[in-house]
């Protein structure tokens, strides 16, 4: 088709009356022909005058309310209003999606590194504690004992080691998490005497807890070890329930 052919199609295009194939062909021509574009605008102005032929009708007042309500909502959240043309928005969307994907990937990478770093640190700490415990337990004259979970502490276990100077270490596993303001406390029980308080500790999220303490001299020869749940700062006399205890007197 030549320019004149397209020009003849323009009035029908202004009335949206072209068949699909003709409209596609004309639209392609319009992209490169300023003269025909201008002509289309003129014909559209003529076609638009036909609108006034329709009988004027009053819409429901609710339509106005709905429009203004929607507008106010958009004004309250201006970032969601699609102002730009579709083509630009498409590319911007791709750009935004790319940026979002990059942020998500970067975040995932950072989170992954933190998790690995934390796991690595936890493993190192666990190894260090185990090494420390083994060193203590293998010190000449050192003694070890085992604590078992009772009642609410069922399923928990702990190993207790101390040397002849009273330097002691307890490693507990599977302890229930402690409520806010509470902590586990170590006790040394000798005979029928009142329990002697040890240090407090809180287990990690896996229920593992470690406490290093200095034993009272009275407990070095013969004692039972126990863990109770107490106020965070520790108490002088046990008030809470026993979670772990040894059954063999050392």
């Amino acid at each position, binding site marked *: 088709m030549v320019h004149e052919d397209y020009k003849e199609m323009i009035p029908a295009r202004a009335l949206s009356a072209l068949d699909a194939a003709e409209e596609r062909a004309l639209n392609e021509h319009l992209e490169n022909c300023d003269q025909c574009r201008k002509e289309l605008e003129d*014909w559209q102005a003529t076609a638009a*005058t*036909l*609108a006034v032929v329709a009988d004027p009708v*009053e*819409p429901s007042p609710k*339509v106005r309310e709905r429009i203004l309500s*929607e507008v*106010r909502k958009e004004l309250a959240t201006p970032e969601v209003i699609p*102002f730009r043309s579709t083509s630009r928005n498409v590319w911007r969307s791709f750009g935004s999606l790319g940026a979002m994907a990059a942020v998500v990937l970067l975040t995932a990478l950072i989170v992954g590194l933190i998790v690995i770093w934390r796991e690595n640190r936890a493993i190192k700490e666990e190894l260090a504690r185990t090494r420390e415990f083994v060193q203590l337990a293998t010190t000449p004259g050192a003694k070890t004992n085992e604590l078992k979970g009772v009642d609410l502490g069922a399923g928990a276990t702990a190993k207790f080691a101390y040397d002849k100077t009273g330097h002691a270490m307890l490693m507990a596993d599977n302890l229930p998490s402690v409520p806010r303001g509470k902590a586990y406390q170590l006790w040394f029980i000798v005979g029928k005497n009142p329990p002697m308080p040890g240090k407090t500790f809180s287990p990690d999220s896996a229920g593992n807890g470690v406490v290093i303490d200095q034993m009272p001299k009275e407990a070095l020869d013969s004692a039972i070890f126990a863990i109770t749940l107490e106020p965070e700062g520790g108490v002088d006399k046990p008030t809470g329930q026993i979670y772990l205890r040894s059954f063999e007197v050392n």
Partner: protein
Amino acid sequence: MELLKAIAARDEAALAQLYDRYRVILFGLLMRILNNREEAEDVLQEVFLQVWRKAEDFDEERGRPFTWLVTLGRSRGIDRLRTLASRERVAEAGARDAVEEISDAASDAFRSEQRGLVNKALAQLPDEQKRPLMLAYFDGLTQSEIAMRLDAPLGTVKTRMRTGLMTLRELLAGQGESFGF
């Protein structure tokens, strides 16, 4: 023109003013196309929300605001009509309930003048030219569909439609100001 600039600058009151000025013409157009109050009101809302979102796209060098608004409204109306595929509407304008709901604004002298001008121009067109224009504009029919509807050769329909619109343009020449803001 100024209203569209204000709307592009997010002036809610300007949109309300534009709505108040054009709601009756546009709703009348949409009722004529869709012949269904609920659908027409829904499209009217879409049109003004599109105006709100696209006002900055309006290029005053490419046409009058009236043309832009009406072209947008008609285009949305025809799109909805095609979506609904509801060609069962009653063709006779006189049979519509909406007629009794013509607003007071319909008596507005300015608007009546516009209608008078266009109706007078259309009255001068032969029916064979006027009918294809009406079927295309209000029913959204393509030239091929009009040819089938009127049982006329496609080439003849194309010629009559083009001639009819050219005659209308000549008859309305110099009246353009009546259709601006």
